[in-house]
Structure formats: structure tokens, C-alpha cells
């Protein structure tokens, strides 16, 4: 084998060559492997929840176990999987390659971010087994319940705090890298769209994450010292906590989706063998989403007792953020027009992404409209919405890019036949699992319910069956990828015929990325 970063470990060897490496590719793979483990754990919890919900009443576990399960499921999926998902894992690996740099601006800071991430994850997981037991607040940590409950909220929150630092530092690193380390000739409008989306995401990480950090610190101060910020008995205002929480957590959903959108914009031109339609529109809509994303957090609080004026303004702003998402969708579809399309697995996932994300996004409109939000808030309608955007959106885009970049990262091809079957099973399972939840939600089934009234059972049974189909698909996909690592065909440097810079180096790339830093003379998707 030619020299690749796998066989140039640097100062250390063995495991240390990974956990102490400052090579962005190794750090990316570190994130990727940890994340996969957490993802499967989170999914297993999801599966258990579905089992419990197959029938009303107690099926498997006690109410307190169930409550801990969905809290953990939410925390793991959001903070351990989906937020670091595309940016920290794939972004770390691909960003410097795509802009023709040797590494990120601050390689040691990058490693430190991973350490923050893994420490935070360890702390969060420790919270399950120590103190008062697994936290049971839901991933939103709403006060005053989160202050009163005897479970181990403080430790879990501290874990999330550490992961927040990790996310902020990653954003800082990427923004600086994109400003400073682009290869000669790569002007802003010659950057791949994935880089644009990471850039927009980086700013959101920088500006939003500190707010959750301070909010969680206040929550801990409440629990340890009884300061009174959120305790009505001392004049505190629980609604203010909701504001603070969503000031971060709404922008955070764009941390989740923007890189996914970037990856999709990367894959479409390659498999349609033509340039992207409306490059600038897609690039600017990323910034637009990041910008408007700050202004809409109140749509999570339409029934909280917030002032009616605020409800109106937040509803209006919420609708504005849908427009740039629409622009992206339209441009993607237009990019297929008169292309020469190969329906390989990455592209199948991308098509699934567009379909599922549109469903998730459009039902977001139902939630953003005041009159209907009141009815669906706090029900399974919301649960369906966010699984469609987060799982159907981000996670499907993640699967797409995992297959797309698999040859670059590993030097081998995955097995195409198995991969397509997995994609199909996943798609069917996904819709069977989550579509009934829209109906359940509209019928009034509240979320975070351990037990439910019998009239909701049909929907729950279908969903539970769907979860098994989905699990089969996931297992097949994971099996296929792992096995292809060992016995997949050797991939060339550029198996898909991509035009961005990561395809101009060997697969897997050498430690310093490029033999010679490339000179950029055209836009990123030049298929002329």
C-alpha cells in the first residue's frame, strides 16, 4: 500500500497513536467510531421504548425506567450523535481535504475538542449509575422539575456542558480554518457547498452554544445552592429557562441539519454528473438559515404562557426560516434536470433525504402556525416531526455521505447490492415507524407518556413493528460497511468521478493530505 495516514502514526503507537493524534483525519475517525457506538446505544433505547409502548399499561418496565429511557435517548441522540455527527466526524475528515489544506488551523485544539466530547459523554453516562440514578427530565431539562427531581440531573447536565465546549471549539476551529487555510486560488465562491454549510454551522456553534453552557451552569447553581433564578417561590421565572434553553436549542437544530444539507449538495452533482444548479443560492441560503435560525426559538413555547405578542412574532419569523430551506430543496431537484444520473446508494439516500426532510419540514409549518400548534404541541405530532427532520433528514444524509466518502476514508468500496437493500429496508421501516405518529399526535396522544389510553393502540403497534424493520435495515447497513472494511474491493482515488479536491489525492490520503498543495482555478463542480 502507498503511504497513507493509517501507516504514519507520528510520535505514538497503538491506541495512543489515535487518541493523542492531532491529524484531522484520525480525529475525524475517532469521532466517527465513538458516535457510531452511541448511535447504536441510543437506538437500542429507542427500540426498548417502542417495545414498552406496544400496549397500554406496564409492558416491560416501570414508569421511572421509561422516563429515564427517553431522556437518555434524547440526550444521546442529540448531544452525542447528531450534533457532532456530520461536522465533527465527516467535517473533520473532509473539510481540510476539500479546501486543500494540510490540517485545520488549530490541530491540538481539535484533539482537545474530542477529549471534551468523550469526557462529556463519559460523565453523562456515569450519571446513569451513580447518585440518584438516571436523569428523568427529558432532554429539555425544564425547570422546576429538573431542580426538584432526586435523580442525577447535575452530573448529566455537566456532561452536556462539556460536550457543549467541545462543539464550540470545533466551530471556532472550522471557521478559522475556512478563513485562513484555503488553497491558493480557492476564492469563497469556489468552495464546495459542504464547506459553506460547515462555515455557517461553525458560526451557529460559536454563538449559540455558550448560551446553553451558561444555562446549564445556572441549572447546576440552582440545584446546589438554591440561587432562585428559576424557582417561583423566590421570584424566579420558569419561562425564562425555556427561553434560555431554546435560544440555544433551536439554532442547534440547524447545527444538525446544515451540514447534512451541505453533504447532499456535494453528492447530487457527482451522481448527476453535472454542475449544481444555483450554487450561490444554495451557499447563501445556508447563511440565511443560520441567521434566521436565531430568531425563532419561541416557537417551542407557544403554549408556555409567553405573551401573545411574542407568540405572534415568533410564529412569523418561524415561517421566514422555511423559505431558505425551500430554496435548497428546489435547487437540488433542479440539479437533477438533464443530468446523467447513477442511482448508487449515496444517491438513493439523498433522494430519501429530500422526501423525508420535506415531510418533516412541511409538518414544521403546521407547528409554526399558532392555531394548529396549540393542538399538536406536546403530542406525538412533534415526535414525528423531529424524527422526520433529524433521522429522515440528518441521519439519512449522514448515511449517504458515509457511503459516498467510504472509499476515500477506507480505500475500499462497500458492497453495492447489500447497501441498496439496506437503504430500501431502512426507508420502509422508517415510514412505518414514524408516519403513524403524525396521526397519533393529531388524535391527541401526548408525548413522553409511559402509558396511554386504549384508543391509541393501533398506531403504537404499527410504529413498534416499524421499529423492528428499521432496526433490520440499520444492522444490515452497519454489517455491510464493517465487512467491506475487510474485504471490499480496492477503490481507486476517485471512484465516483468527483471534482472536489478530496478526490485529487490518494484513498486513503497521506498524512499531509496532498503531495503538493493543489492550485484551484475553477468552481467546485466543474463537469464541462
Amino acid at each position, binding site marked *: 500500500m502507498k503511504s497513507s495516514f493509517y501507516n504514519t502514526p507520528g510520535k505514538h503507537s497503538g491506541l495512543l497513536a489515535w487518541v493523542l493524534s492531532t491529524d484531522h483525519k484520525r480525529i475525524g475517525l475517532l469521532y466517527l467510531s465513538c458516535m457510531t457506538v452511541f448511535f447504536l446505544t441510543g437506538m437500542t433505547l429507542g427500540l426498548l421504548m417502542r417495545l414498552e409502548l406496544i400496549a397500554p399499561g406496564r409492558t416491560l418496565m416501570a414508569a421511572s425506567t421509561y422516563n429515564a429511557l427517553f431522556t437518555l435517548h434524547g440526550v444521546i441522540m442529540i448531544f452525542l450523535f447528531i450534533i457532532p455527527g456530520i461536522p465533527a466526524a465527516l467535517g473533520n475528515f473532509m473539510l481540510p481535504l476539500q479546501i486543500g489544506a494540510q490540517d485545520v488551523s488549530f*490541530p*491540538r485544539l481539535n484533539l482537545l475538542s474530542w477529549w471534551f466530547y468523550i469526557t462529556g459523554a463519559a460523565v453523562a453516562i456515569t450519571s446513569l449509575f451513580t447518585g440518584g440514578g438516571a436523569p428523568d427530565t427529558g432532554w429539555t431539562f425544564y425547570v422546576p422539575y429538573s431542580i426538584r427531581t432526586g435523580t442525577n440531573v447535575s452530573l448529566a447536565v455537566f456532561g452536556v456542558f462539556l460536550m457543549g465546549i467541545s462543539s464550540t471549539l470545533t466551530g471556532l476551529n472550522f471557521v478559522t480554518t475556512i*478563513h485562513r487555510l484555503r488553497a491558493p486560488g480557492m476564492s469563497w465562491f469556489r468552495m464546495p457547498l459542504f464547506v459553506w454549510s460547515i462555515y455557517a454551522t461553525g458560526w451557529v456553534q460559536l454563538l449559540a452554544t455558550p448560551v446553553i453552557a451558561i444555562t446549564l451552569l445556572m441549572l447546576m447553581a440552582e440545584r446546589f445552592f438554591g*440561587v*432562585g433564578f428559576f424557582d417561583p417561590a423566590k421570584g424566579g421565572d420558569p419561562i*425564562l429557562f425555556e427561553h434560555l434553553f431554546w435560544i440555544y436549542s433551536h439554532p442547534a437544530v440547524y447545527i444538525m441539519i446544515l451540514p447534512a444539507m451541505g453533504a447532499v449538495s456535494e453528492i447530487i452533482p457527482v451522481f448527476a454528473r453535472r454542475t449544481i444548479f444555483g450554487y450561490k443560492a444554495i451557499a447563501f441560503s445556508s447563511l440565511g438559515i443560520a441567521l434566521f435560525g436565531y430568531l425563532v426559538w419561541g416557537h417551542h413555547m407557544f403554549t408556555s404562557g409567553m405573551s401573545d405578542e411574542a407568540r405572534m412574532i415568533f410564529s412569523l419569523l418561524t415561517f421566514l426560516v422555511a423559505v431558505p430551506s425551500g430554496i435548497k430543496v428546489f435547487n437540488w431537484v433542479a440539479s437533477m434536470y438533464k443530468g446523467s444520473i447513477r442511482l448508487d446508494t449515496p444517491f438513493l439516500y439523498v433522494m430519501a433525504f429530500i422526501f423525508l426532510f420535506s415531510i418533516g419540514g412541511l409538518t414544521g409549518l403546521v407547528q409554526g402556525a399558532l392555531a394548529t400548534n396549540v393542538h399538536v404541541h406536546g403530542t406525538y405530532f412533534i415526535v414525528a416531526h423531529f424524527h422526520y427532520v433529524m433521522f429522515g433528514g440528518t441521519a439519512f444524509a449522514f448515511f449517504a455521505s458515509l457511503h459516498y466518502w467510504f472509499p476515500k476514508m477506507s480505500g475500499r468500496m462497500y458492497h453495492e447490492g447489500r447497501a441498496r437493500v439496506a437503504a430500501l429496508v431502512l426507508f420502509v421501516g422508517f415510514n412505518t415507524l414514524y408516519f403513524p405518529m403524525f396521526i397519533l399526535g393529531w388524535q391527541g396522544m401526548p408525548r413522553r407518556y409511559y402509558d396511554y389510553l386504549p384508543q391509541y393502540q393501533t398506531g403504537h403497534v404499527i410504529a413498534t413493528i416499524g421499529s423492528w424493520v428499521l432496526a433490520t435495515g440499520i444492522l444490515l447497513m452497519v454489517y455491510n460497511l464493517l465487512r467491506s472494511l475487510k474485504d471490499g474491493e480496492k477503490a481507486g482515488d476517485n471512484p465516483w468521478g468527483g471534482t472536489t479536491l478530496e478526490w485529487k489525492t490518494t484513498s486513503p490520503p497521506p498524512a499531509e493530505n496532498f503531495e503538493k498543495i493543489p492550485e484551484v482555478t475553477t468552481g467546485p463542480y466543474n463537469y464541462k
Partner: protein
Amino acid sequence: MNDIAQTASPHKDYAGSKLGMWLFLFTEILLFGGLFLVYSVYRSMYPQDFHAAAAGLSVVLGTVNTVILLTSSLTMALSISALRRGNSRRSVLLQSATIVLGLVFLVNKYFEWSGHIHEGLYPNAPELLTRSHGEILFYGLYYVMTGLHGIHVVVGLVLIGIMLTLTMRQRITGADYVKLENAGLYWHLVDLIWIYLFPLFYLIT
């Protein structure tokens, strides 16, 4: 930790490090921003109580601390100029002065806090709980905000301490001073935040 930096990245990206530092400062602004938000909400809900509670703080101590921090910012800024003019001895002196001023600030804060704690004005204290809602919140904010600021002062002092040794060992020089400059930026930010904390807590009328 610094030997790797020299070897690992032969081309130092001066502007890049500074950009990174500024971005970090932005996150600090937003971190404190969350607290300023809480402050402004509760102040607008309980203006009278905040007024009454603020009377309990010593304007004199607050002013003295403001002057100390402003001066420490001056010495910090001067130390960089001195270094860049090649006078590293003077730079070391000025950095030490900054550290001393920072320590004096902390000592003052210590006396101020322990004074209030003796009066029974600390979070969840029985004495404090007899007061009005706004006063409870005022003192809560007072401790959390000046406490977080205090932590930043301590971090800043440690940083400057490291810079000091590096300057003495000639590892930070007039030709390669970006670390010192970044430490300076951090220290000025600590000052900047205090510039707002001071009127918000001590000067409410």
C-alpha cells in the same frame, strides 16, 4: 505544551491565531450574555427591589476594583508594546504588575464576598430568604456573575503567569509574540465585562 507548536507548524499563521482568539472572545461575550439577559429580565420585573438591594453593596470597593482592573489592562497593553520594542525586561515587569493588580482585585473581592456572607446574604441563606423576591434574585445574580467573572480573572492570571515564564525564557519575543497578545486580549475582555458589571450592580439608583 509549546514545543510541539514550534515543530508541528513551521509556518505560523499569525492572523489565524488572532482570529481564533477573537472568535473565542465572542463565545465569552455570549456566555456572559446569557447572564446579562437574566439580569435584565429580573431587573425589569423587580426594579424597586434591585434598587434596594444594590444599596447593600459598597460603591467604594466597586470603584477601587474598577480602577485596579483598568490599570491592569494598561500594564498588560504596555507590556506587549515593550516586548515588541525589544525590551523584554520591561515587558516582564509590566506583566508582573498585571498579575499583582489582578491578585489585589481578587483579595478585594474576597473581602467583599465574605462581608456579605457574614451578613447572611448568600444564596438560600435564611436571612436572605426573608427579603423580597427581587433582592433574592439580585444577590443570586451578584454571586453568580461576579463569581464567574472572578473565575475568569483567575484563568487570566494563570495565563499571564505562563506568558511571563515564556517571556523570561525567551520563548516569547518581539518577533513572535502572538501568544502574549492573545493572553492580553483575554485579559482585556475580563476588564470589559467588569466595566458592565460595575454599574449594573454597584451604581443602581
